[in-house]
């Protein structure tokens, strides 16, 4: 002990006899709890996948088979082949809408955020305070009037009716402005002295520095758009133009008690999200964690 002590100024108290064993027991108990909880979180997803791969005869069987006794893709083939539930089309629609919303949000929000963070102009504080104030307004206040606006613009059954209103949000502007405020100005000032225009400085100096914040915003914007239900349900009534979440509602109506088909649809809608989640989880976690800490 004495030879180790100088290297560790805050040496732990001498372990009591049996500590090693009690620590082992503690770890075993912790793992048991964590695995049990993980099972609770994963089993519904497993059940979704399992149901989607079962033939109809096994949906209501006398025993619960977590692993299907016979694996079949019939449910997927059935919904993919049915012209009244064009789920392949819906998948492409969701992909187009979510990608465009993400791309345009990044462009529009980063431009605005940069100006609010770095530029002095008359009205800056007032406009920004106005944006801030609307964060406290509940979203459904805008449901009816925005629907009427979109209808008057002729954007019902048009992707523009879903994409453009999604760009009005203020969260991304705040989020990126915070980030721009946190990075040093020196590089931008140097670029300015070298004769770069404001747009060049923004695009070539500030944006590359903001990559982690842009990635975070991109991930959560894409997920929110991909998962959105109510607004696309209202705007995209044409079956060929629906996105996946309202499409699942259509499936629920079209296949009464055909649970295999519905779970196949749910799986198709869930898989891209889960892939993105597994790959980019740290960005999502970071954005949520900062949301909470900002509340203090």
């Amino acid at each position: 002990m004495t030879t180790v002590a100088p290297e560790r100024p805050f040496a732990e108290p001498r372990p009591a006899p049996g500590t090693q064993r009690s620590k082992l027991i503690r770890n075993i108990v912790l793992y048991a709890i964590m695995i049990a909880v993980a099972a609770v979180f994963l089993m519904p997803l497993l059940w979704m996948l399992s149901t989607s791969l079962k033939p109809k005869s096994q949906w209501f069987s006398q025993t619960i088979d977590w692993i299907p006794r016979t694996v079949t893709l019939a449910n997927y083939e059935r919904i993919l082949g049915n012209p009244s539930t064009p789920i392949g089309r819906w998948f492409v629609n969701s992909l187009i809408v979510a990608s465009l919303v993400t791309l345009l949000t990044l462009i529009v929000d980063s431009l605005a955020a940069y100006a609010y963070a770095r530029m002095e102009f008359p009205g800056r504080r007032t406009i920004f305070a106005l944006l801030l104030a609307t964060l406290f307004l509940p979203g459904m206040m805008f449901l009816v009037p925005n629907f009427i606006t979109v209808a008057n613009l002729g954007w019902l059954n048009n992707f523009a009716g879903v994409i453009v209103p999604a760009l009005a949000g203020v969260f991304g502007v705040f989020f990126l402005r915070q980030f721009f405020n946190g990075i040093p100005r020196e590089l931008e000032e140097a670029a300015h002295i070298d004769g770069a225009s404001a747009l060049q400085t923004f695009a070539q100096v500030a944006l590359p520095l903001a990559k982690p914040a842009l990635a975070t915003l991109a991930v959560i914007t894409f997920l929110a758009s991909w998962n959105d239900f109510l607004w696309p349900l209202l705007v995209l009534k044409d079956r060929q133009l629906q996105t996946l979440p309202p499409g699942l509602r259509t499936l629920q109506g079209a296949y009464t008690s055909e649970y295999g088909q519905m779970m196949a649809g749910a799986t198709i809608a869930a898989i891209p999200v889960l892939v993105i989640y597994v790959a980019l989880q740290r960005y999502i976690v970071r954005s949520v964690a900062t949301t909470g800490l900002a509340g203090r």
Partner: protein
Amino acid sequence: MATTVQPRETSAPAVSRRRRLNITPYLFILPHLLVFAVFVGYPFFNGLYISFLQYDYLRPNNTQFIGLQNYTNLFTPGSVQYQVYWSSLGNTVEFVLYSVPFLIVIPLGLALLLNTRIRGSNVFRAIYFAPWALSGAVVALLWWWIFQSQGGLINYYLASWGVTPPRWLSTMPWAWVAIVVCTVWWTSGFNMIILLAALQDIPDYVYEAAAIDGATGVQSFWRITLPLLRPVLIFIVITSIIASFNLFIQPFIMTGGGPAQPGGGGATEPVMVRIYREGFERNLQGSAAAMSFVTALIMIAFSYANFRIFRERT
């Protein structure tokens, strides 16, 4: 003093700034501000205006200015709107009361579990948080299937244990149980991540000092962890109440707002579903706009009260 401070240097930029207003910043904010004005600014006032109309977008010729009629309907006992609106608002408050305690306690438990920093806890964190990334439509459809009376997973196990299973989605109070279980599974991870970040912010030496003073694990939880978490706990209680107040898709897909009540409306129909139905199934958009404004006022009053209380205490 002022005269000695080289006047030319301070006034020169001011003059040039005044001479040509730099429009560059406005060009930067213009795209966002334009969309914001059309889809957040304008509808705020337009919504208020529509709430004074009898309005159906499918039949624009029938539009009529009816003053406060849409609002008086909401406050006249006996009117259709009165019955279904206040019933749905009551349902929403019920759901808030049932769901929020679970949405605080369970995430707190999970966060404490993960904060033991045992090897592999990042993997478990990812698993517990995963449902939050899914669409509400996927989650609600999945739990709708799990809670089915015929072939549903839950009733299968209940029956095999000799319990007579209820008809979850069409009887009370079981429909609320199903909706709360679905919600807790879907959104617990969100509060868990926030609480975990706050727990990891508590420095180790606080616990070490307590341990040296002979505090047990339970004592340090009540005396150190909880008091230090208080601001974050208040934050997630408020945000969870607001999120639960916005309940929509779980009853929309799982119960359709039912079971029906004798007085009208459904026993699990929340206020958001009611507004949607008023505006887009009955096509009474003026009335729906009035309902949204009254609901929004209630929510804003609640948020403001919280803000005041929160501010006074810290």
